[in-house]
């Protein structure tokens, strides 16, 4: 579960990115987060994975309280949250398979686990026959699916995606969203930040809208309804 209560985030240069934001996401939900540029969406994600600390308010993610989390706890929080970015963040000189191995090794997985888990997630994202390719030999959509597979490797309870379709054409974008929907159906909580209104409107999901660091609307199925 994710819960932000009256969160204020002021960056060291004085910018107020969040101004009393409150938001709760239950386990198993699928949530879109939308809002104009600079409204604080990426800041929310950085807070959720312990990359920045809240200035005020409470942030709780999967049982970890981020307000005064000890630094050595952060890796364990991150193992419960798979993250996906617009720019894929794959290791260019490693094959798809070795990118997966790298991510599993990083959390101390053994060779047996690795052999079992990687084919499963590659199959889930539909890339089982491209595991020997380098990222540069894949399309953007395929690269993003590799990133999703990697995010799923350590069996996180939550997937967070910051503009996952920002670099993709509409057809690829829809594919990625459908994949995230399928992952959600398997029991994983999914939070997707996106700009793409049309895409959001094709799904009947909860949509949270931010403006100037606050939630201005939160409802099902459409983009742009004002909070009352």
């Amino acid at each position: 579960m994710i819960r932000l209560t009256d969160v204020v985030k002021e960056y060291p240069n004085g910018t107020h990115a969040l101004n009393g934001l409150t938001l709760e996401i239950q386990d198993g939900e699928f949530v879109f987060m939308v809002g104009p540029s600079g409204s604080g969406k990426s800041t929310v994600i950085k807070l959720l994975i312990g990359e920045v600390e809240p200035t005020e308010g409470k942030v709780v993610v999967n049982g970890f309280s981020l307000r005064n989390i000890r630094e050595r706890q952060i890796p364990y929080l991150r193992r419960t949250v798979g993250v996906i970015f617009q720019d894929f963040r794959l290791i260019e000189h490693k094959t798809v398979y070795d990118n997966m191995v790298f991510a599993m090794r990083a959390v101390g997985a053994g060779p047996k686990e690795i052999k079992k888990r990687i084919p499963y997630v590659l199959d889930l994202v539909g890339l089982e026959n491209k595991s020997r390719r380098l990222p540069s030999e894949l399309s953007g959509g395929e690269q993003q699916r590799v990133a999703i597979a990697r995010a799923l490797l350590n069996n996180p309870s939550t997937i967070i995606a910051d503009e996952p379709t920002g670099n993709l054409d509409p057809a690829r974008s829809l594919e990625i969203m459908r994949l995230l929907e399928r992952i959600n159906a398997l029991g994983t909580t999914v939070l997707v930040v996106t700009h793409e209104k049309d895409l959001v409107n094709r799904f009947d999901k909860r949509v949270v809208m931010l403006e100037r660091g606050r939630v201005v609307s939160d409802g099902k199925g459409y983009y742009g309804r004002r909070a009352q």
Partner: protein
Amino acid sequence: MSRHNFFYFAREGAYNMFNHGFMSFAAIGVTVACLLIMGTFTLVAVNANAMLEDMEQKNQVLAFVDENLTEEEARALADDLEAVDNVRGVTFISREEAMENFQSKYPDEELYQDLEPEIFRHRYAIDLVDIGKMSETKAKLEQVPGIGEGNVNAYEDEAAGFITIRNVAGVVCIALISILLLVSVFIIANTIKLTTFDRRDEIAIMKMVGATNGFIRWPFVYEGFLLGLFSAVIGFFLQWGLYEMVTRSVDANDTIRLIRIVPFGDMWVYVAGIFLGVGMLIGVGGSLSAIRKFLQV
């Protein structure tokens, strides 16, 4: 740490080291130089010390008695001599004994076999407590009536010389070692910073998926460890060669061959131990300081 992780870290560390051939070469070079300078000064100090110990063992001076005194009168000086500071004990040697000693040293020289005892003098062999006070003691012994100025034989110059060498080698050693240690750590840290820079994307991914700082650190620690290990091994063999070379040229030189050199074989275990210890300290210290900053956030 599990076995597969160990091999993974070791492989990554070695890969990084060879990947930055030039910087690794520079880092190893500086570390080897540091070890060699340190080792050389230490070995000089060890040798000076060994020679001092040799001298302390025959920590003896000879005091010649005035020729005009009879044997009886000469023997009577024993109490006066023993009363001098820093004297452990005295042994009287009569002119007859002195002659016999002399003759037994040169049994083949016929000329020496019919010497008269009168050309020798009665003497005392005097054992000292502290070799460092040799010249003061010598002066005091010369004041004893019946001995007189210029009649005490001592190796004060040699003793003072070795003490100076030992002290200077000690001080220079400590000063140089501290400077060189810092330089070596700095260069190794920068070598490893190159690796962390090359691998910043991978480090970011590791952090993203929840790798602990300890895990991220290990390959870099291994890299530093390997740099230190290589330096220690190369340094050890260079030091050995250098020492043998010096030993041989001392042996070949007539004027200084009397200096006894401690054989390398007596010390190699210590030299190897110190080189390994210091090399790894530098390597691991350098790598830890290189990645400290990287692991914040």
